[in-house]
């Protein structure tokens, strides 16, 4: 991901590379030429083994008819050309329609989760910026959801969201009396609400942590100067905090987007095999398309489409934010 350090202008505050090159530790040209490659070798080897080669195999899979009839002998699987893509993108057909719906759900899920996690993280980071008694205790508490193993947290939510025996309905219906009819949270339209809630619960501490760390690097006297000038809290936040956090935000937003968009654990642990259409996130949809119907070619094609989409979005994001930060 170190693209951010060089190519990606998301990395902001560009390092004066040219000077580094001259002053770099290459006083021994022979070794120096080989050394970076030696240093990269283990990473490259592992990336090849675990990521790149399987990815290429995956792309190949998307072009063959890899159904249960050929799964035991891949080499016999017939070439499908773009058939798998055609089926996945034919939105009049049940398969394509399902993929499109799932894509829509995922976009909604990802954007809302990202926005909420960021807002909560920011709200908490700002609230904890000035020191007060018990600050480190609160900070510790806020970090627990992130530190909890993912499935432990999600399983607890699953338990809380049960209709008859869950804590959420007990609170809403029995304690507060807000609704008379116990709502469903894990099926029907509310499933998306539940999914977002759980994802935000798990993710916002990460945003909080990153933003809080960013805030620490803003010198205090900047705020003091602003106070003297009569700027209120809100103006201070807008004029000082937000611009200072820009480099952090650029990276944070991208990471949160990629993580939420390809979130698999949350729907998988929250809904089990009974995932409702409103909670049908795309990676889970692809999992079902591959493993439940044994159509691995089709699942691979969907994955490649997802990859292309994410690459375009990321590329555009880096391009746009990069141009802006260069102007700044």
């Amino acid at each position, binding site marked *: 991901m170190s693209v951010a350090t060089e190519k990606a202008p998301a990395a902001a505050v560009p390092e004066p590379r040219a000077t580094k090159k001259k002053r770099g530790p290459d006083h021994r040209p022979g*070794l120096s030429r080989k*050394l970076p490659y*030696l240093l990269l070798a*283990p990473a490259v080897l592992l990336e090849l083994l675990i990521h790149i080669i399987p990815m290429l195999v995956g792309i190949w899979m998307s072009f063959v008819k890899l*159904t*249960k*009839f050929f*799964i*035991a*002998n*891949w080499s016999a699987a017939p070439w499908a050309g773009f058939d798998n893509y055609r*089926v996945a993108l034919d939105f009049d*057909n*049940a*398969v394509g*329609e*399902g993929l499109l719906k799932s894509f829509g759900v995922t976009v909604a899920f990802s954007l809302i989760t990202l926005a909420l996690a960021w807002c909560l993280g920011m709200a908490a980071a700002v609230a904890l910026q000035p020191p007060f008694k018990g600050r480190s205790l609160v900070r510790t508490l806020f970090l627990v959801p992130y530190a909890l193993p993912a499935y432990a947290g999600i399983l607890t939510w699953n338990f809380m969201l*049960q*209709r*008859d025996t869950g804590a959420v309905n007990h609170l809403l219906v029995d304690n507060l009396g807000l609704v008379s009819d*116990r709502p*469903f949270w*894990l*099926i*029907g*339209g509310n499933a998306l609400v539940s999914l977002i809630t759980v994802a935000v619960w798990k993710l916002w501490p990460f945003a909080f942590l990153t933003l809080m760390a960013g805030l620490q690097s803003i010198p205090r006297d900047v705020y003091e100067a602003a106070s003297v000038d009569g700027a209120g809290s809100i103006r201070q936040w807008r004029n000082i905090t937000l611009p200072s956090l820009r480099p952090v935000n650029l990276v944070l937003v991208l990471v949160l987007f990629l993580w939420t968009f390809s979130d698999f654990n949350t729907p998988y642990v929250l809904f*089990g*095999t*009974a995932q*409702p*259409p409103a909670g049908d996130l795309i990676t889970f949809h692809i999992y*079902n398309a591959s*493993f*439940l*119907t*044994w*159509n691995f070619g*089709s699942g691979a094609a969907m994955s490649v489409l997802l990859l292309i989409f994410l690459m375009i979005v990321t590329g555009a994001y880096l391009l746009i934010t990069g141009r802006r930060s260069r102007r700044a």
Partner: protein
Amino acid sequence: MRLRSLVAAVAVSALGVSLAACGGSDSGDSSNGGGGGDATLTYWASNQGTSLDNDKQVLTPVLEKFTQETGVKVNLEVIGWNDLQTRIQTAITSGQAPDVVNIGNTWAASLQATDAFLPFDGDAMNAIGGKDKFVPTALATGGKEGTDPTSVPLYGLAYGLYYNKAMFAAAGLQPPKTWEEMVTAAQKLTNPAKKQWGMALAAGSYTENVHFAFINAAQNKADWFDADGKPTFTGDGNVQGVLRYLDLMQKDKVANPSNAQYDNGTKSVNDFATKKVAMVINQNNADSSIVANGMKAGEYGVVPFPAPSGGEQVASHVAGINLSIFKNTKNKDAALKFVKYMTDATTQTTLGKPFSSLPVLKDAKPVFTTDAAEAATFADVYNTKSKPLPLVPAEDQFESTVGKAMNGLFAKIATGGTVTADDVKTALKTAEDQVAASS
């Protein structure tokens, strides 16, 4: 100096990796031995008992006895249903597989299509004791019709309608013999205000739902695939059968809408065992959960799941667990011996009780219950009122697409929507398209 530290770093990495390699030594290594005396078989068993550990405790003495008799060691791994399908798929894909695996028999025809399993042809079938020892309908689940089966029945299961004797007596009701009687009785025993419901349905479990889609359609004499293996999901009998089952919640209102969230049969059985509901339709292995959750044997009775009057008398699909041998096993003879042992009369009797299963052998008596009437009911359903699920390669897709369609329809009903015959037809059409697209 720099080179040396580099070398050191590499050496440390290498050492570390080899240290790490010491972990997890006894994995499913099935490559040794040649079927002779000291062969070791790897056996994957699906979860049947109260926990994976419980299965292990039950199976271990049985496997030890096999080792004593034949000298063949068995390496057992019990696998939860959550993981079983992906485990089998990856095993098939890679060829790195156990020797023997037990599977839900409804997958038999689908797994057969992968060509990864050993067909029980004449010789293999003789080696395990001949096909005549099995209940014919049970053996029929072993693969596509007219082919050598790639699996043989191991544990037999069948659906029955469990009812609470005390509740029925208090309401002056007789156990139902037709669908209509069942609905009437259920309505009489339903009182939402007191959180009392006539029935519990595992309406959020696609595997349970699809079984009832199948059984209800079969009662309407409707099939899900034609002779060429093409899906025929949208036939009138199929739509009406599905709707009849959905109407238990929608029109008849005898099931708690919360059931739409019950994503496995366990939850509905628990409601029955804790006396929140008067009836539940489940397979006979519900017995152990019912007792484990506080109801005593004798407090409940079982009758066949009834068809509407004038309908076909189908009360269950031929449910159960089958046993398969992976084709690339290096211990074929030992594996055949093992299958023979697991399906012989003694082992069937030993395992019938803890796993609450029906014997898959002709002439064998069910031992899973001491209640003679219950045993007779289930034996009758299994032997005469059961129909195998579609024996076509696309069976697994039928299960997931139709089952999930029903999950969605139940969810719609539970959250206040209305489901008409047209809605059912539309949902089944989508399922049919999905199956058609990937076959």
